[in-house]
């Protein structure tokens, strides 16, 4: 597998990977940044309006009380999981191909979790009381109910974000020091000097650093599995047909990693093209991500099948109705059919080596899968809620333009953060790539007779 094309020296690699930080801003970047900024402004306006007026601005109703907000929450959180999968699980499995892509995948995690965090807060209706989730000594002596899934959610998401942030920043320390030492610009020496916190590559520090980095990777690993399991408990512990199922935790985790890998692909293809990183983010990287998409896609498809099989075998009337009539044939059933098309049919394209290795095709398919995964969450949440156990309560859901605006606003905000990251942060971990380069060179030398 070609992880690094050619045999560059350490200095060449460093300059290639870091020079985008002090190179000229391209016009394309500026235009993209401006569009993302405008979209973020829309988000800001709509979120402020929601906080001032209330969530009556959204299409939510009873019984569909969760609707867009929780769909978007689950979608964004899920996207984050692939970043942690790459940076933590593949680290523990000593997969070298993670090296060049782990920094931007982990950044994707952070920014996606930030978007996700907005939704439960806005959905509270009175977001300024969010601290009621915490066990603080209030005069009324009312404490949170820790047997509810919502405090679990808060704990899981907060821990996930914090650990991901620490892991990401710690990994970036040697690179920030390299920027400090290498940049020709005075102000960058100061700014990155401060960000590098005085890192000087001391082996005395490194012996602690490696333990802590490995430890954070080890801690992030169970979080990949636990966070979306906890999110799925929000649904699984309810009595609603279509939600009340023990298959939910693994089903959600697989869906999360699946959608996350789609997002990794969506970001990776333009990054390697724009920055000309094809020598460190090679076709083999694309190939591997494609294979993982296929594998996790099949786990997701298997989970769909299990849900139907369990409903059919269980024979419970409500569950049967939701699975075989509510999902495929009621209002908003388009979400169900798009899910099936994108996640079951389109994913199969990744069986073909030519598809996996063609950046353009893989990129388009990754966006299709992202849409499919959003529709999956929408159909789980909205289509199940529309058809509860009591037919007199049945009610359709129609999103308002505020719902759509906030969804696209978070996509713009994500893009804004991401474009900033691409511009002002070492996108590929140069220190780790240099280490890999050294290892590869040594292996080449040993292979020679």
């Amino acid at each position, binding site marked *: 597998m070609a992880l690094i094309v050619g045999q560059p020296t350490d200095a060449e690699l460093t300059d290639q990977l870091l020079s985008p930080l002090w190179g000229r801003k391209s016009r394309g970047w500026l235009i993209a940044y401006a569009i993302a900024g405008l979209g973020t402004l829309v988000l800001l306006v709509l979120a402020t309006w929601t906080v001032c007026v209330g969530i009556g601005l959204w299409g939510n109703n009873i019984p569909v009380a969760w609707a867009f907000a929780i769909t978007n929450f689950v979608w964004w959180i899920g996207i984050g999981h692939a970043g942690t999968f790459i940076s933590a699980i593949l680290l523990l499995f000593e997969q070298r191909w993670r090296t060049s892509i782990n920094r931007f995948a982990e950044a994707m995690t952070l920014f996606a979790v930030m978007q996700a965090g907005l939704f439960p807060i806005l959905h509270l209706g009175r977001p300024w009381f969010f601290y009621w989730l915490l066990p603080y000594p209030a005069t009324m002596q009312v404490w949170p109910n820790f047997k509810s899934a919502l405090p679990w959610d808060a704990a899981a998401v907060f821990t996930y974000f914090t650990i991901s942030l620490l892991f990401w920043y710690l990994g970036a320390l040697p690179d920030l020091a390299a920027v400090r030492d290498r940049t020709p610009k005075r102000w960058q020496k100061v700014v990155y000097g401060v960000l590098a916190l005085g890192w000087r590559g001391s082996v005395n520090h490194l012996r602690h650093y490696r333990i802590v980095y490995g430890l954070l990777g080890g*801690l992030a690993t169970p979080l990949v599995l636990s966070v979306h399991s906890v999110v799925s408990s929000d649904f699984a512990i309810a009595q609603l047909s279509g939600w009340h199922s023990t298959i939910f935790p693994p089903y959600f985790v697989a869906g999360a990693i699946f959608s996350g890998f789609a997002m990794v692909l969506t970001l990776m293809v333009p990054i390697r093209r724009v920055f000309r990183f094809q020598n460190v983010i090679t076709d083999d990287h694309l190939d591997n991500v494609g294979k993982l998409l296929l594998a996790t896609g099949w786990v997701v498809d298997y989970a769909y099948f299990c849900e139907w099989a369990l409903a059919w075998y269980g024979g419970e009337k409500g569950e049967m109705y939701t699975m075989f009539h509510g999902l495929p044939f009621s209002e908003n059933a388009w979400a169900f059919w798009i899910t099936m098309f994108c996640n079951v049919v389109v994913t199969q394209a990744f069986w073909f080596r030519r598809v996996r290795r063609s950046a353009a095709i893989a990129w388009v398919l990754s966006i299709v899968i992202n849409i499919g995964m959003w529709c999956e969450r929408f159909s789980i949440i909205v289509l199940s809620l529309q058809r509860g156990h009591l037919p007199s309560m049945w009610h359709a859901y129609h999103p308002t333009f505020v719902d759509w605006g906030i969804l696209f606003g978070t996509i713009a905000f994500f893009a804004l953060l991401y474009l900033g990251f691409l511009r002002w942060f070492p996108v590929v971990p140069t220190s*780790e790539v*240099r280490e890999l380069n050294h290892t590869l060179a040594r292996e080449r030398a040993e292979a020679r007779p």
Partner: protein
Amino acid sequence: MKRALGLMAEFGTPDEVTAAARTLRASGYRQLDAYVPYPVEGLDEALGFRRSWLNWGAGAAGAFGAAFAFWIQWITNHRLLPLNIGGRPSFAIAAFLIIVFETMVLFTGVAAFVLFFWTCRLPKLAHPLFRVEGFESASVDRFWLGVSADDDQFDVERTESELRRLGATRIEIARGVS
């Protein structure tokens, strides 16, 4: 003139710096450190560093976090405000375990991060080593070996010639006030 803190020698490859560290240590030097652009296998043993103790510190913090989370759920949901929801027990270990786990992970991770900076005495933006000429290469492609002036074996001329014999491409004196 500021006091000499020690000698800094630049090496071109990880193997050279590791070999040099091993030789110096064998000839009695104890106050050694190396500055490298990426972790070098075996260099910490060559310099005589022991394995980091931080995982134990972080583990202790994690155990405390788990106990704390369990205690807070027990005291609030069982002792202070027991709610009867559908006849379920107020002391529900299975339901509490999720937050126990998340808090344990959080405390372990944050403690590892904080302890790391505390043991390394970072952040330290101004350090005498940053004034050593050419030291910027330590974060890119050169491997520096430092011998402290506090070392019993240290003697500017003798140490310098030893370093040169070991293949140092460049030797600088680190000066500072500390």
